[in-house]
C-alpha cells in the first residue's frame, strides 16, 4: 500500500499544495484536474525530485520520505525527454536495469507487447514521440519497481494504441501487485481503466 500522509509543499511565493491519500498494491489511480493544480508536483514529491515541508510517504509501512530518488521503490515515465539522445532504444533500457535483470529477450518481449517491436536499435531521434513514450514504458515496467508514476505518458498515443498500453498496464499491475499513479487530462483514460480517481483542485 502506498501511503501519502498529509504532505504539505510550497515553492517560494507560489501555491501551497497538500496531499493525503492511500493506494492499494495492484490498483491504479488516475490523478485529474486542470493545469497548475499540482499533478506533476505530486509525482515529483513521491519520486523524490522535490522534498515536502511536512508529511510523509511510505510503501507497505516503510517510510521513504528522506530517501534519494534512486533508493525509492519508484519508477517514473515523464511527460517527455525520457530517453538519452545518444543511446539506442535498447541501450536506453538496459542502462537503467541492474545487471541481474539484463535479459535481452525480456526487452524484446516488452517491445512486442507495446507494439514497437523492431525499434530496438534505433536512436530516439529516429522514432516518433509516441514510440519514445512506449520505449520509456517498457523500461519502467522492466525496472520492476512496485510504484509506477506516469505523467501524461500516453497523451501522444492514438486511442487504440493507448488502449493496448492500458491493457498491458492493468494486467501487470495485478500480476506484480504494483501501485500505479497516472496523471491524465483525458476523461476517457480513467473510464477505460475503470480505476480510482483523485481529482485535485486549487
Amino acid at each position, binding site marked *: 500500500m502506498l501511503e501519502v500522509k*498529509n504532505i504539505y509543499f510550497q515553492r517560494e511565493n507560489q501555491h501551497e499544495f497538500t496531499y493525503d491519500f492511500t493506494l492499494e498494491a495492484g490498483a491504479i489511480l488516475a490523478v485529474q484536474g486542470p493545469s497548475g493544480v499540482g499533478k506533476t508536483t505530486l509525482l515529483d514529491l513521491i519520486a523524490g525530485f522535490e522534498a515536502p515541508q*511536512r508529511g*510523509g510517504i511510505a510503501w507497505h509501512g516503510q517510510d521513504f520520505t*528522506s530517501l534519494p*530518488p534512486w533508493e525509492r521503490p*519508484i519508477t517514473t515515465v515523464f511527460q517527455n*525527454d525520457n530517453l*538519452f539522445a545518444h543511446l539506442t532504444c535498447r*541501450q536506453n533500457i538496459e542502462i*537503467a536495469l541492474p545487471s541481474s535483470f539484463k535479459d535481452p529477450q525480456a526487452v524484446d518481449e516488452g517491445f512486442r507487447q507495446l507494439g514497437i517491436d523492431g525499434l530496438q536499435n534505433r536512436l530516439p531521434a529516429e522514432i516518433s514521440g509516441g514510440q519514445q513514450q512506449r520505449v520509456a514504458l517498457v523500461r519502467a515496467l522492466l525496472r520492476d519497481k512496485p510504484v509506477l508514476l506516469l505523467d501524461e505518458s500516453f497523451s501522444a498515443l492514438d486511442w487504440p494504441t493507448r488502449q493496448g498500453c492500458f491493457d498491458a498496464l492493468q494486467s501487470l499491475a495485478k500480476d506484480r501487485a504494483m501501485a500505479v499513479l497516472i496523471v491524465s487530462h483525458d476523461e476517457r483514460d480513467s473510464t477505460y481503466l475503470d480505476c480510482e480517481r483523485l481529482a485535485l483542485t486549487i
Partner: protein
Amino acid sequence: MANRPQPVKSVWQVAGTGALAGVALAGTLFALAFAAIAALLMATQASAITGGLSFNYILHVTGFTLFQALLSAVLSLLVAIPVALSCWRRQRQWNARLLVTVSFLPFVMPTTVAATGLIGVWGQKGFVSDILQAFGMAPLPPIYGLGGVLLAHVFLNAPLMLRVLTGALAGIPTSQWRLSSQWGLGPLQRFHLIEWPAIRRVIPGLLALVFLVCFTSFSLVLMLGGGPSVTTLEVSIYTALRFDFNLPLAALLSCFQLGICSLVVLILAVFTGPSWASLPDLYRACPEQLGDSSLPVKSVDGLILALFCGLIFLPLLALLVRGIGPHIVSVIQWPAFYRAALNSIFIALGSGFLATLCAFTLAHARTRLTVAGTPVAGLDIAVSLYLAVSAIVLGTGLFILLRGIADVFFMAPALVMLANMLVALPFAYRVLEGRMAGLAKSHDRLCDGLGIRGWRRLRYITLPAMAPEIGYASGLASALSLGDMTVIALFGSQQFQTLPWLLYQTMARYRAGEAAALAVILLILTLVLFTSHTLIARRFRRG
C-alpha cells in the same frame, strides 16, 4: 513520521564529491597563478625595478592596448555576425560548411605562421599587390601598423566567433523557424525577432574572450605593429622578462594587466547571459525562409561568403604556395624533424588531454554547484585568470618555483605541457561547461529516477553525450599547444625541441624555403590533430 523536519543537507551532499574535486582544482589554479607571479615579484633584482619605464609610458601603452583590443574585438564581431547569418542561410553550400569546419584553424595557428600568411596576401609583394600592379595600379601601402594588427586579430578571431554564432543560431528551436517561415518573415524581421535574440546572448562572452586575447597579444603586435608606437602591455611584460630580465617589473605589469582585464570582463559580465560555446549539430532540417532564394539575398550571401573565404583562405594559400615544393622532401629527412615532431605531438596530446580533463572536472563542479544553488563565479574566475596571465609569466614563475626542487632539463617538457595546458584551459572549459549545463537539465531527473549514478552515469551517459564537445575541446587545446611559440622559447633547447621551435631555428639560419615547408607541415599537422580528435570523439557518441 509526520511533521518531521527534513534533514539539512550540505552543499557537498547535494553536489557530490566530484564537485569537491573541481573546487579543489580551482583553488589550485588560483594558487598556481599567484604563486607564479609572487615568485617573480620576490626574485632578486639588481637594477631599478622600473627598468627605465616611466609611469606615463605605461599609461600610454595601457591606453593604446585597451583601444586596440576593443577595436579588434568589435571589428571581429562586426565581421563575424553577417558571415554567421550567411553561413546559416547557406548551410547546405560547400563554402559555408568549409568555413565553419575550419573556423578553429586561424585561431590555433602559430602566430608567426599566421603573420607570414597575411603578409603573403596583403604585403608589398603579396597576392593583392600583385593583382593591383597587373592592372597598372599602385601596390598596397605597407600593412605594418595598427591596420596590420587589426587585420591579423580579425583573421584570428572572427572565424572563432563565427563558429560560436552559428552554434547559437543552430540552437534556435525548429518550431521558431517554422513559425517564421509560415508567417513569411523577411530577412530583416527575422533578424530582429529570431536571430538577434539568439546571438545576443553569446555576444558579451565572445567580446570578452576576444578582447582578452587581443589585449594580451604580443607576437603579432611585434611582427605587424611596425614600430614602438603600436604596442601592448604584454610586449612590455615580454621585454621585461626576456630581454631585461627584470622579473619584479614583469610581475607588477602582469598584476596591472590582470586588474584591467578583470575590470573589463566584469563590465561585460553585467550584460552576460548564458555562456557561449555549446556546439549543437549545425546541419538540420530548417524550412526555407521567405527571401532565401531571392536574388538580392542570394547575391549578398554569396558576396559575404566569398569575401570571408578570401580573408581566411588566401593567407593559407599563400603559405601553401611558398611551402609546398622540394623543400618538404629535404625537411622530412632531417633527424631533428622527427624528434621535434614527436615531441610536439606528445606535448600537444598531453596538454590537450590535461586541459580537457581539468576543464571537464571544473565544468562538472560548476554544473553540480549550480544545481545545488551555490554561486560558481569563483570557478569561472579561476579559469579566466589564465586568459589574462600570460604563458611566459606563468612559465617563468613556475620555473623559479621549481628550480630548487627538480632538474630543470628534466622538467622542461613537463613545464611546457603544463603551461600550454593552462593557456588552453579557458577555451576547453567554455566549450564543455555550456554543454554540460544544458545536459544537466534533461539528464538529472532521468538519471536520478533510474538510479544511474556515479561512475555509471559518467561512463554511459555524460561522456558519450558530450563526446563531440570533448573532442572539440581537446582538439582545440591540442592544436593550440601544438602551435605554441611562447613557452617553448623559454624552455626549448637543442635537446628538447618542438616543431615551432625548429621552425624558428630554421628561419634563423636563412633557410626560408625549409621554414616555409615546415610551416606547411605544422599547419597540416594542426589540421590532422584537430580533425582526428573530433572524428575519434564522434565514434564514442553511441555509448
